[in-house]
């Protein structure tokens, strides 16, 4: 069986997720970290849709709508956190917040 469209889409989703993860891990600026998280969320959404189309099930699209709302909520909470972060540390560098160190 030759690869179908949805298989390519899954590969794209995996690459997107890896890029997003790399962004989260490598970036120190909170705003970029937030954008990377958005990328990962969207990668997950893409994976759901392509998996749904491959299996011929509507569940994947349902999940994507869930993820959209989740992403919206996450963006608003995340941006609020960014503002609070900036207020507290006068910077957007995540490494400057290390108060959990024992």
């Amino acid at each position, binding site marked *: 069986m030759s690869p179908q469209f949805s298989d390519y889409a899954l590969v794209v989703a995996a690459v997107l997720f890896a890029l997003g*993860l790399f962004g*989260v*891990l*490598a970036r*120190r600026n909170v705003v970029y970290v937030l954008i990377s998280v958005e990328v990962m969320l969207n990668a997950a959404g893409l994976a759901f849709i392509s998996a749904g189309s491959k299996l011929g099930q509507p569940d994947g699209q349902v999940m994507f709508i869930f993820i959209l709302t989740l992403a919206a909520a996450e963006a608003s909470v995340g941006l609020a956190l960014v503002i609070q972060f900036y207020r507290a540390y006068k910077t957007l560098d*995540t*490494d400057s*917040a*290390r*108060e*959990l*160190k*024992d």
Partner: protein
Amino acid sequence: MYAIVWLIPALPLAGFLLLVFLGRRMPRAVAAVVGVGSVGLAALATVLVGASFLSAPPAGGAIEERLFGWVSLPSLSFAFGFRVDALTLTMMAVITIVGFLIHLYSSEFMSRDGEFWLFFAYMNLFVSSMLVLVMADNLALLYLGWEGVGLCSYFLIGFWYREPEYCVAARKAFIVTRIGDVSMLLGLALLVSSFATLDIQELLRRAAAGWAPGSALPVVATLLLLGGAVGKSAQLPLQVWLPDAMAGPTPVSALIHAATMVTAGVYLIARLSALYALAPAVQSLVAIVGLATLLLAGLAAIAQVDLKRILAYSTISQIGYMFLGLGVGFYSAAMFHFMVHAFFKALLFLAAGVVIMAQGEEHNIFRMGGLRTALPAVFWTFLIGASSLAALPLVTAGFYSKEWILWGAWQAGRGGPLLWLLGGCLGVLLTSLYSFRAVFVTFFGDQKIRESHLPGARMKIPLVILAALSILGGFIQIPSDIAPVSLFESFIGGVFPKAPGAAEGGSTQILLQVVASALSLIGVLAAYVLYRRGVGAHERLADSDAYRGVRRFLFSGLGFDWVYKWAFVKTFDCAAKLLKGEVVGRAADAIGSANAAIGRALGALQSGRIRWYLVGIALGAVAAVGAAVWL
């Protein structure tokens, strides 16, 4: 009159309770009245009970009175019960009457002490405990009294507790006697596990029926009990505490460390004589312990310079005589010597107390002298006491009691000429030598310290009464070859197994008496030559090194203290020091600190950098997914 028996120990106990709770606020006179009065009343009650005991002997030869239950279990029960027979009555009479005289003396002797009331509280508690000890009808109650007198002895030795060395002496006395007590407790345990009772009469009956003479169990049991007896009575090898116990006030030494408590061991063996009859080997051991102790303590006494220590060693030595009497089966003789010894030794101590007080707390006899004229009453009473101690023939009570024991040592089944030779000849010689050494050095020669604090009536009266008893007490039991008087034996003899081969009289006995008497007189003469005549031969001797070495050895009580110090005290101290750091606890702590180290290492991972945490999450997720796919 028998109904008041329980009052005899209860009165001093009541005195103790009154004094200990209210004594601090009592005027001295009231405290003295309570303290002396309670013992006086107890003495009166004893006399009344004794009178009716003599006039109308109770059935079975003993008054029995059970006050109330104590422990009652299916496998063992004992009560607060008293049993008064002739032996007990003898002890009670000595305890209360001599005790009363000593209390009376103390009321003047201690009158300047700040804790006058406390002294009488302890003394009353002592008298009460001692009475419980001798009156108990079971060994548990006896053991209660036994521990009680040890406790009072501790407090009274350390009565002047501001002096650390007195405290050390008190502690030593308690610990050494406690070692003996534990041995005795184990003896009781053995008896219980064999006969399931602690009632003395019942126990003796069952033992006589159940144990074959000479078998292992009675030997072990009597040995363990002997351990208790040698501890309390300061016999070898536990005699080391008594000389140091002289740190206590002199009336204490007179009452506890001469007349009563130290003879508790003698009482114990006499009380359990039927048990010792089942273990002939141990009974012989009792005789040997007594003999060895009397000789060693006699030797040590010769080298002492502290008047009270001379008397302490002499007490050890005289109790050695009592043990010798017990060991050869002459129980009545041992008890007779106990009684007579209580009279003359209490007298000597009380007289010594006056001397020391009058010499400004000086204890060294070589710094005293010439007190014959300064303190005539004390001189004469001390002389009577010393004569009785030295067993000067015919006129002193000590002669009659000691003769009886020596006669037993000579002719009893397990006695023999050797026992007599060592105990009789050497012992008598040593005794009269050290007692008259004390007399000559203290009371003759030139007076070196002016006398002060002359004794008043309350101190003199007990001296006179005890002096009279030290002479007259002997005439109630006279060997048959001199005069057939045997009041004591007929009173107390029924309590004990018949003395072996007790046939008296004959030329042998007279010969032995003459030899012993002669030796006693030779001892006096030797003391005169050595310590009195002119400068005294003693001082010429003092120059030689050998003599000084021997003297130092004798002075130290023959080195026992030194051995015990290194063998036990230092070992215990070392163990305590070693363990103080909690060796065992450290091991447990090590587990804790190992965990802490691991925790610190892992704690480094918690850097606080959120990106590292995310790396962790990502790697973990990959690993989890990988594991799920792989497997």
